[in-house]
């Protein structure tokens, strides 16, 4: 067992904060329009697909925690170096860093697209991306505890949004949900697979784990967070299915935002404008923590200071936002990220878990043999 991370207690966070970190990481830009993508495959049983995807996150998170527990105080990067050796391990680490980069980019670009489509069609991409990047850099230089604080506030301040979906229920029809389970298993699973882009984010556990003070509680709060996320997604899906009709939902790009557009208060005519602007707070932890996860990995590969890394990273992201301009390009990136994330987040942790167990068995056998000799 090499490279355990030693962290002073001052830098550590309490396990209950993991609930906020994971929940806020999972909810981001995907929530705006996941309904349509899942609905394409599973039709009016789409909520079952969402439920299945939620179940999958529990299983994967279970494997992740088990893997991490074997090493005590180490992150994914250290574990990979230990399991596969220096070269293959570092290669896989590089892939994971790239994944964090792409995920960061997708969140940022999608959010900018939403602002441009809903509120300011004329505002330029570079302006929004610089503004957002500056806030993220600011949070990043504050350290992990600041970023965890951001996630905490992002969840607490966004609590009022969920009850808002009660308004559209008035226009919903329960009949849209029936007959239940009409879709076959393969289309249900396909729908669940399409949830990948929306439901990822909990893989931050791999990196943040060594920073948790009371590690034995980590599992409890992780599963609670996943449960909360699944609840949010399933309830949104149920409301959307009953509120929209079949063809309607397939044509609505950001079903959640359109759901809000029906709501109007005497003091604010179009509620979705508030929602779109408010969403910055919700995507902020996504951006901060993906950036931080990429940084943690990079320090394992090369020696680089935090400030230097964050400016280089932001520069690349900024150039990226300039290159990706059209909706079609953004959708391609989302699809590719979804595909990539399915293997990195859902398939790979289970494989890694088996590898660590194998490795542990082999080492202990070897140690026994050494002792016998």
């Amino acid at each position, binding site marked *: 067992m090499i490279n355990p991370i030693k962290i002073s207690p001052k830098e550590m966070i309490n396990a209950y904060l993991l609930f906020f970190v994971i929940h806020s990481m999972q909810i981001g830009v995907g929530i705006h329009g996941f309904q349509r993508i899942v609905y394409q495959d599973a039709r009016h049983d789409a909520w079952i697909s969402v439920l299945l995807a939620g179940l999958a996150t529990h299983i994967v998170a279970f494997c992740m925690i088990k893997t991490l527990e074997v090493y005590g105080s180490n992150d994914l990067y250290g574990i990979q170096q230990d399991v596969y050796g220096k070269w293959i391990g570092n290669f896989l680490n590089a892939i994971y860093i790239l994944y964090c980069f792409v995920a960061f980019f997708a969140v940022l670009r999608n959010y900018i697209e939403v602002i441009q*489509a*809903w509120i*300011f069609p*004329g*505002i330029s991409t570079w*302006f929004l991306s*610089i*503004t957002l990047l*500056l*806030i993220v*850099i*600011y949070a990043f*230089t504050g350290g992990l505890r600041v970023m965890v604080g951001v996630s905490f506030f992002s969840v607490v301040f966004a609590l009022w949004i969920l009850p808002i979906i009660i308004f559209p229920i008035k*226009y919903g*029809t329960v*009949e*849209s*949900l*029936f*007959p239940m389970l*009409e879709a076959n298993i393969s289309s249900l699973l396909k729908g669940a697979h399409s949830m990948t882009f929306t439901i990822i984010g909990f893989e931050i556990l791999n990196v943040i784990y060594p920073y948790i003070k009371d590690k034995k509680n980590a599992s409890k709060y992780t599963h609670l967070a996943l449960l909360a996320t699944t609840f949010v997604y399933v309830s949104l899906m149920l409301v959307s299915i009953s*509120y*929209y*009709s*079949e*063809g*309607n939902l397939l*044509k609505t790009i950001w079903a959640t935002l*359109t759901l809000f*557009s*029906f709501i*109007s208060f005497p003091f604010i*005519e*179009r509620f979705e404008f508030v929602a779109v602007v408010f969403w910055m707070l919700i995507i902020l932890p996504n951006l901060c923590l993906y950036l931080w996860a990429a940084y943690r990995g990079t320090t394992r590969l090369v020696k680089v200071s935090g400030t230097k890394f964050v400016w280089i990273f932001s520069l690349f992201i900024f150039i990226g936002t300039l290159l990706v301009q059209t909706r079609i390009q953004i959708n391609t990136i989302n699809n590719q990220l979804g595909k990539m994330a399915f293997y990195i987040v859902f398939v790979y942790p289970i494989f890694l878990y088996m590898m660590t167990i194998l490795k542990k068995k082999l080492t202990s056998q070897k140690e026994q043999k050494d002792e016998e000799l």
Partner: protein
Amino acid sequence: MKNFRFFLILLFLPSMLVGCVETNILDKLGLVTLVGYDVGTEEKMATTSAIREVNPEFQSNVEVITTENETSKGNRMKTNRKLSKKVVVGQMRVILFGEELAKDDIQHYIDAHLENESVSNSVYLAVVEGEMTELLEYEYKNIDDIGQHIYRLLEQNIKQENMISATLHETGHDLYTAGEDIFMPIIKKEEEVVELSGIALFKNSKMVSKIPPEDTFYVKLIAERFKTGTFETILQKEDIPDNLMKNTPNEIPIAFDTIHSKRELKLVNPNTPEFDLKVKIKSRITEIYPDVNLGDPKTVAILQKAISKNLSREISRVIAYSQSVDSDIFAFGEKFRSSVRGSNLTKEKWHELYKDMKVNVEVDFVILRSGVFE
């Protein structure tokens, strides 16, 4: 600390750019409150819009402008060329369709508005009977702002449940549901007033027929969109049993307030298809002529039966009529789809089945009380 100050300054710098975003100042805007589409005489689309211009110094005035072009956005540009203020659609409340256009196809118009992010999904849709320009451009004696007036007219009647509701969301929803057709209120100019003159029935996105406004009650009752409201019916001779009173008249007009109503719809035979429709109404009699003794329990029971019979006949009549024009505004098809596994219902498929659909209507009418004077 030095770092902190650096970022603080950097963060405040972008806020200076706030003024660079396109601004919308109320004095410089023309707010479209109502837009009416019709078939153009020369080009594809004729658009008439009521535009409210807010003026801080004088009373705000309303302009009604008609243009013709190939697309609705093109029409907006043409309207812009006739105004000193920028035309915006964020405050739009009503979209009207000319009858001729509605009979042709309105799918494109609904799609275009659903797509436009600055149009709220709660705008009301309606069909105009007669000339669109005449309705909107006429200088009414008592109406200052025609856009606002039509909006209030629709809103008030829909809230009071005197008229069916067709908002952009509801219409978009029903248009894309396999087992359902859309409907809209009809608006008509009668001399100096604008009135609601009926309900337009659509098959897919084409208007096929209309029914009088008196039938709104039945339509809402069948489609389960009715909660409470006032209604009037006329008991015919065949409904009235002989033992109700002496010298039974030919007709008994009767008005009641519905306190509570409930609809139950069940698919009993998916092959025909055949439905059981049960309607329960609890109500308060407000007017009856000639006077019937409502203090006598026997008479009340007879009256309840007579009204039930009358209502179920009327409901059957409305259903049969909409079947004859092939327009399922009651969403029987949606019930069919949700009850039959693997039906893969499409609009065409349902319209085939809808013609031969059977509905067994059963009305349970309960008189809770009459007024305070017997």
